[in-house]
């Protein structure tokens, strides 16, 4: 299957793990995107700059990579707002309620053998797969 990209997946994943390991080794913190973001709502004195810099780093890292290697992807266009907006809302609400997302629970929590993170990761993976099944195969929307 031509869409199978094992090498970029493994090495990209290892970089993600490296970022998380640096954050824990030096700053003693979990590299969880949703948690780092929700710590800015509202920003607290002495605890906001590193969060903003982390977010800036993510944007600069991804943008630089895709500028240098533009052939490595094709941006999605014309995705319906009627799906995009509720999706964003559910992701924001759900990750804050469940204390984490793919990076915090998935990449960091599982590595700490946290039973909460393992449960959350299994749950959101299943929930995501069921959602795609319903949207693509039961309703028949394929975007």
């Amino acid at each position, binding site marked *: 299957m031509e869409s199978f990209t094992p090498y970029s997946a493994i090495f990209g994943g290892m970089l993600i793990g490296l970022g998380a390991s640096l954050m*824990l080794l030096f700053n003693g913190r979990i590299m969880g995107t949703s948690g780092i973001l929700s710590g800015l709502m509202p920003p607290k004195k002495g605890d906001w700059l590193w969060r903003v810099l982390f977010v800036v780093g993510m944007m600069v890292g991804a943008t630089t990579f895709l500028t240098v290697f533009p052939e490595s992807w094709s941006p999605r266009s014309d995705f319906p707002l009627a799906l995009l907006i509720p999706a964003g809302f559910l992701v924001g609400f759900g990750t804050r309620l469940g204390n984490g997302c793919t990076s915090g629970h998935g990449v960091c929590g599982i590595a700490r053998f946290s039973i909460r993170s393992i449960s959350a990761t299994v749950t959101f993976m299943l929930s995501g797969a069921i959602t795609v099944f319903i949207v693509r195969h039961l309703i028949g929307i394929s975007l």
Partner: protein
Amino acid sequence: MKQNLIALVSGLIFGIGLALSKMIDPNKVLNFLDVTGNWDSSLALVMIGALLVTMSCFHFIMKRDTPILEKTFRLPTRTDINTPLIIGAILFGIGWGLAGFCPGPAIASLGLDLLDPVIFVGAMVGGAWLQGVVFKKT
């Protein structure tokens, strides 16, 4: 303020990893979640690659009494599997499956001059904000 530099570098490496691994491509994410369709298993390897590194590194890091730049580790201490954890993960999964964005790739895409990530992150911040209001969490 070395901690700020580490946060920036950690974010940079994370962002490059998201782009290289193609986690940043929402269509690829949806094809990964589409296990009964034309399943693209690549992103399972992203998780495996990441966990190979975190599991080995965390093992040694957690043997330290303190992190290098701080006095204490700030780690979650809860061990109970409660309703908010599971309901939150279910809602997150639904949103993830609808659009193919989870928080990391959505944020990392903000610099790509695309409208979709901006709208998604706006809605995501709105959802997180509402959660904070409803559950009075600070």
